[in-house]
């Protein structure tokens, strides 16, 4: 069993063996947790947001959602979710996209892609291995005309979600350091990762 606290703005990674569970606890509430996952034995097979959306016919992730790979295979299943809605459309913040959204004065702020690159490098993963990710605890509704919103999270202190690995799964996490929008309540906070065999 692994029980670790991921500091605000920090990365995390680990292998979740098949049939074991990973619980992610939003310790202080309103914290987006950016998440990528790979077949631990062949990282060319990885989480695919579009394959997941197409297979379940819905853009939101919630209890019962099966996270699928780019080959359409089940990677993990959401077996417990106290929040009810998570995003997989908005992707991760990066220094580069921050310059677009907020202006060039944010270029040197920390960003999720920096976490993914640093943590991924420990597992032999590089830039081309970063794809559209999951944003746990982030709420991105799509209005009728296609307008996207990142609205206040619907999470709260202590709420958690639990994922069951369907195959041995390498997980990369960025505890989102974004301070320019409400996804972290403008105040990044720690999260807790509990891996149970």
């Amino acid at each position, binding site marked *: 069993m692994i029980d670790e606290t991921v500091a605000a703005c920090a990365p995390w990674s680990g292998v979740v063996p098949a049939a074991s569970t990973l619980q992610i606890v939003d310790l202080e509430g309103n914290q987006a947790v950016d998440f990528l996952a790979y077949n631990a034995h062949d*990282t060319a097979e990885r989480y695919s947001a579009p394959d997941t959306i197409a297979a379940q016919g819905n853009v939101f992730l919630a209890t019962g959602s099966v996270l699928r790979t780019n080959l359409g295979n089940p990677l993990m299943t959401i077996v417990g979710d106290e929040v009810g809605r998570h995003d997989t459309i*908005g992707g991760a913040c*990066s220094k580069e996209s921050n*310059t677009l959204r907020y202006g060039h004065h944010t270029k040197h702020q920390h960003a999720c892609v920096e976490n993914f690159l640093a943590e991924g490098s420990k597992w032999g993963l590089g830039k081309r291995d970063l794809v559209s990710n999951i944003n746990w605890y982030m709420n991105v509704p799509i209005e009728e005309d296609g307008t996207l919103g990142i609205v206040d999270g619907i999470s709260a202190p202590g709420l958690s979600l639990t994922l069951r690995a369907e195959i041995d799964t390498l997980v990369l996490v960025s505890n989102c350091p974004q301070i320019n929008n409400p996804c972290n309540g403008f105040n990044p906070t720690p999260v807790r990762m509990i891996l149970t065999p």
Partner: protein
Amino acid sequence: MVETMPTLPASAWPDPPAGVPASEMTWAEVVAPGGATSKVLSRGTHVRLRDLHGQACAHLLLYNAEQPWERLNVADTVKIPWQAYLGVGHPLLSDQGRVLATIVADDSGRHDALCGGGAPARARFINAAAKHGLEPRDLPPSVSFFEGVRVQGDGSLNWLGSAGAGRAVTLRCELALVVLLADVAHPVDPRPEPEVTALEVLAWRGAATTPDDPLWTSTPELRRAFENTTDYWEARA
């Protein structure tokens, strides 16, 4: 007579788009249903995709031709404009905060940036990418044109399908690009055996978006994306 083939030279294409001299044509090809094609295009090139018979679905991936590790980022493409549905004025953004291409014309309005291409598109993209030295790891999520999907309030998907034969989308290349195209059924097409028909691809020389174009200043986000793009290619030129 075979319809689905490239025409060489492209200037021999009998029916260039209105206002385009035949001598400016650089790509003229009709892609077979279930097929794929690819091309390296210079900055400023305009590419028109046309659904000839009403059942094409044009799956697209874009890479910076000078450094193909920079590629289409679908998440930023919908997040930065705050718009999930592709249409005129929508930028196709890279993972480096730059504009790879902009949509400058569209009389279909039925496109998709959420569902990817599924196994059939992936199979075509693996081979098309390989011909540019790219591997399966280099395939990010793709976008598709001519088979629309809309999202309901509860997040579920609503299939719109095709807007009909003859509809076209024109992209303007803001950098030199590797363009990969596959014409296969959309992954959430509800029909048991979806029909797919031929895709026409025409390209011609032109200019990238300039600061005096209303698109450049249409939003602060897009202005900064064009500024990043210009900053990149001017430093490199």
